[in-house]
């Protein structure tokens, strides 16, 4: 949020990411997440949303990616050179795209791995109960191998596992992917509650712009490795470009009529 609070919790400043020393994936991305805020990162496939999240959590290194320019500050500290475990210890946890639960561990063991970097045994137990209260479905399945629970439950497990690290900032990568609309709403609701009740700041990367913009306060739109547009969620919802390209609407609240598509194609203004 440009110029809102004095020091945001997370400040990504003009970063450039290169994979394998040659492939330029992010070309100067800047964004901010305020303490306790909830912010969306929107964009199509391949826009650079996941890479941006991985640059923050530094999961890039195992994919041979590297932040070559720019800075990432978390709570005032530069973290772009810290390794992934150190970033988690400082309070940033990424919930990766595609759920990525440990399939051969039980649901409860999965949750406990989330607390791996913590040394406070008693409150881990309390947090486990808290996760079960947010996700009652997981409680019923605690001793089942995570590979055998449903897709929605795996997504809940992935979020719950991230929460077990007691982060100040959670990076959620496409939590709606491959899930039924009802489940998506359930998961978005719980994300909103974690943000509100547990004061966890959220940076949510989503292709489902309509759902995400209902949830967040502020949004950034990415395309081809750049942030092309940002603003309050309500403003983005009303923006003609966002409506056309991400929400599938033309007039205010109107569904797009495909009869018109042939005659009228809106140009993306940010490209001109």
């Amino acid at each position, binding site marked *: 949020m440009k110029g809102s609070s004095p020091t945001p919790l997370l400040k990504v400043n003009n970063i450039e990411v290169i994979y394998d020393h040659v492939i330029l994936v992010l070309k100067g991305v800047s964004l901010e997440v305020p303490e306790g805020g909830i912010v969306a990162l929107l964009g199509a496939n391949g826009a650079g949303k996941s890479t941006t999240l991985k640059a923050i*959590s530094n*999961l890039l*290194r*195992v*994919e*041979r990616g590297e932040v070559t320019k720019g800075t990432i500050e978390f709570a005032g500290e530069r973290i772009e050179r810290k*390794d*992934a*475990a150190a*970033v*988690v*210890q400082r309070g940033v*946890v*990424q*919930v*990766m795209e595609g759920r*990525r*639960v*440990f*399939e*051969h*561990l039980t649901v409860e*063991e*999965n949750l*406990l*791995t*989330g607390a*791996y*970097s913590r040394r406070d045994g008693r409150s881990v137990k309390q947090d486990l109960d808290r996760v079960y209260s947010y996700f009652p479905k997981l409680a019923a399945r605690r001793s089942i*191998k995570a*590979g*055998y629970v*449903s*897709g929605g439950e795996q997504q809940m497990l992935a979020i719950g*596992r*991230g929460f*077990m*690290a007691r982060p100040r900032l959670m990076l959620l990568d496409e939590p709606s992917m491959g899930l039924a609309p009802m489940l998506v709403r359930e998961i978005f609701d719980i994300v909103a509650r974690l943000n509100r009740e547990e004061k966890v700041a959220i940076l949510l990367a989503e292709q489902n712009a309509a759902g995400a913009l209902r949830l967040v306060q502020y949004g950034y739109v990415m395309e081809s490795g750049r942030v092309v547009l940002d603003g309050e969620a309500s403003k983005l919802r009303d923006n003609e470009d966002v409506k056309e390209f991400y929400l599938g609407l033309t007039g205010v609240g109107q569904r797009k009529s495909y009869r018109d598509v042939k005659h009228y194609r809106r140009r993306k203004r940010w490209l001109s």
Partner: protein
Amino acid sequence: MSGDLLFGVELAVSGLLVGVMYSLVALGFVLIFKSSGIFNFAQGAMTLFAALALVGFLPRLGMGVSILAVLAVMVALAFAVERVVLRPLVARPPLALFMATIGLGFFLEGLAQAIWGTQPKGLDIGIPDTPYVVGGLLLSRLDLAGAAAAGVLVLGLIVFFQKTTLGLGLRAVSDDHEAALSVGIPLGRAWAVTWAIAGVVAVVAGVLWGSRLGVQFSLSLVALKALPVLIIGGIESIPGAILAGLIVGAAERLAGGFIDPLVGGGVKDFSPYLLAMIFLIFRPYGLFGREIIERV
């Protein structure tokens, strides 16, 4: 007939006891494959290295201190391997890592022999090689001690992996190492710890095999015996390595005792590999190989 039966039982029991020692070598492979997906070609060399180091320390330090010293050396070696070999190769194709372990194997064999010499040496661990007689069966004390040591080690490993936080972290790493990284499990340290455990296993295997065969270069070839064990048990399963080791040991002895006299010998040596081929055809994941969970 009852003579035959007694002979058979004796063969089977001694086979099982030797089998435990095969399991031990296989275990080193399983641990590293589980946690990092690498087939560690250097496991045999690590066994040789551990045994040579022990023989090298013995005259000066005595048995107890020597074993501790060798354990320390193997742990240090594991951390060095993680730093020098594994870390630069992160996110490279598995074949690159496999090749690196081949290189590491030759390096360790060479280094061990450069430091402690190439002469075969005896290793006396203070257990006389006279058999116990139990109900008409002859049981080698050395085999019994080996089986007991292996059993304790395996129990310890199971408790470690199932009951401790570090063990949980290592199991998570073996499932999905990127996801493990995302929840804050330090990958480098997890790999180093795994290699250290494999190093400890190599020490136990080196002591037991060294006391039986003498400490010499061929000790690193004992690793070849682990291959059928891995195929039969499943390359990712600790219980699989144990059970398959027993099967291989017993099959080898029984084939040697009953089939070899009929065909003029040789079956003993290839029977484990024959068994492994049968498993590859009918059960390629082995007895306890990791089930591939597919949700539809």
